[in-house]
């Protein structure tokens, strides 16, 4: 007979009370795990979409012109017939403090051209940088070389041009290397070619109309990078496109804080359930504890029995709570947002944290009842003495 045996037998005997304590802990842990899993999955989803978005910093010439849209976003002034950015100045971007966080720099030179009596916007870009900046592009055919063009989907339809067909831009014979699949953005209505070719065609040697910059990860200090780039390009206006989704991120941050608050309250209530139930259990076991003390159990022996009971229930509660929280979150996503369900993954760190939290709550809540049990006067407890 050991103290552990006594604790386990008591738990088994008092199944109802044990279940009640277990339920309190499971609900508390499941709530915390569920909320954290949900917020983590949502954060992953939004980050994933941010990465899909490509560029998150835009550099445009300083201008007083009214705002135009590009890619569905409000850019500030982009006047492609006025002052542009010197291409040579862009080398300064590589020298900022957080240059290591920059994934790609994509200069763009823009200008209007006429093809078959139609005005079309020609964009000269760095196609290597475009792989990172516009990862959603799907190209039928190939990316263009110096005398080739890539047509947006709408442009190809309107001009009636297909791959390998000739196209004349300012009397220069070029051919269509590829056609973009529809993107749902302004890209569908543009013609793209290499930077050098576009600068020649548009007579804009050494200048660019705007620069798209992709900064890595969601944790990078975008605002700081904007400030650092602004310092290198004082004649340009640098802004974080992330501002467009900042509202969503702020909402997520608010929800995150709210979920932590709710989690804290639920954990506190779970702890109260354990405390109150254990106190009741100690009172019910007055005679039993009196016997233990009468036959020579020290106070620490009595406390140990109480703590073992709490530890066993807490460990089970932590494991079940984690599984319940994970399962409920995954089920919720499967029912409501199937695509994001894959983001809800088994997380060993969260599981370990859930178990530790359950143990901490269970043992902390049992401390006072254990102390009360140990302090019990054996002669009063037994009454017959």
């Amino acid at each position, binding site marked *: *007979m050991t103290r552990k045996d006594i604790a386990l037998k008591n738990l088994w*005997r008092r199944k109802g009370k044990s279940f009640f304590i277990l339920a309190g802990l499971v609900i508390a842990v499941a709530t915390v795990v569920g909320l954290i899993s949900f917020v983590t999955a949502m954060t992953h989803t939004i980050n994933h979409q941010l990465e899909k978005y490509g560029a998150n910093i835009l550099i445009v010439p300083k201008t007083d012109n009214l705002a135009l849209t590009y890619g569905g976003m409000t850019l500030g002034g982009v006047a492609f017939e006025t002052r542009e950015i010197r291409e040579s100045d862009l080398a300064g971007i590589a020298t900022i403090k957080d240059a290591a966080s920059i994934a790609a720099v994509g200069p763009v030179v823009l200008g209007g051209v006429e093809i078959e009596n139609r005005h079309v916007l020609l964009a000269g870009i760095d196609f290597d940088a475009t792989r990172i900046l516009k990862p959603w592009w799907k190209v039928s055919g190939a990316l263009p070389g110096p005398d080739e063009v890539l047509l947006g989907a709408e442009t190809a339809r309107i001009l009636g041009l297909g791959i390998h067909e000739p196209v004349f831009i300012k009397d220069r014979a070029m051919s269509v290397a590829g056609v973009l699949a529809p993107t749902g953005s302004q890209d569908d209505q543009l013609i793209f070619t290499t930077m050098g070719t576009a600068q020649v065609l548009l007579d804009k040697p050494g200048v660019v109309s705007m620069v798209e910059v992709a900064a890595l990860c969601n944790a990078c200090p975008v605002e700081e990078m904007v400030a650092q780039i602004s310092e290198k390009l004082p004649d340009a206006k640098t802004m974080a496109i992330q501002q467009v989704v900042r509202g969503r991120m702020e909402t997520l941050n608010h929800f995150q804080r709210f979920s932590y608050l709710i989690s804290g309250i639920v954990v506190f209530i779970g702890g109260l359930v354990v405390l109150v139930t254990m106190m009741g259990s100690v009172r019910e076991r007055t005679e039993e504890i009196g016997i233990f003390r009468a036959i*020579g159990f*020290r106070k620490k022996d009595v406390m140990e029995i109480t703590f073992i009971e709490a530890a066993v229930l807490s460990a089970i509660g932590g494991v079940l709570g984690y599984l319940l929280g994970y399962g409920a979150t995954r089920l919720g996503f499967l029912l409501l947002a199937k695509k994001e369900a894959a983001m809800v993954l088994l997380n060993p760190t969260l599981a370990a944290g859930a178990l530790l939290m359950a143990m901490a709550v269970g043992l902390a809540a049992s401390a006072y009842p254990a102390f009360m049990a140990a302090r019990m006067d054996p002669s009063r407890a037994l009454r*017959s*003495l």
Partner: protein
Amino acid sequence: MSHIIVERLSKIYGSGDSQVAAVSNMNFKIDSGEFVGVMGESGAGKSTLLSVLGAMNTPSAGRYLVDGIDVYGLSQEKQADFRREFLGFVFQRFHLIPYLTVLENVMLPLTCADMNRREKQARARAALAVVGLENKWKRLPSEISGGENERVAVARAIVNDPPILLADEPTGNLDSRNTGEVMKLLCRLNENGATIVMVTHSAECSAYAGRVMTLADGRLVSEGRRPIEAVSPSFIFGRENVCYA
């Protein structure tokens, strides 16, 4: 040297006008191997005296020595150790743990002992053999009779081989047949060297004791041997069962 020495022992409950002296200025000695009965009316202080002797109730005044150890000079944790090593308790209401088997109940005092499970079980089985219940080791207390419960309580009291047994009305809830069985058992333990202090209302049971102390209003009013011929034969549960015949 006497085994147990009580000097000027008093226990007072309450304070001021509601003060009650449950035990008042008691002095006695008990030698090793004695079987002492403690008798008195309700409220005489018997249970209080036993709780003090059981190192569970600190006296208001006086000293309680066992083999020279000042019991209430020990810390509370040391008093727990003292109870485990020196004392065995037999309670009126058995006070067995209902969810433990007979064997587990007897093993309870060995919980904190430095021995493995097999050794503990062996000692518990030996104690059950002494009380004649070795075949009921798997039963729960609710599955055996009152007399058997009391015998399990005796087995639990002796499993640690304590030199002193304290029994509080051990036959209070038993019928005459079981009373005889339990008293025979106590006599046998006493013959094997255990010092027994037994609180009892029953004159018949006190006949088993070699010495009887009588309390009244918290004071020791008389003590002495009760010669066997002073007890009516009709109250003796078989002459051969009387310890001091």
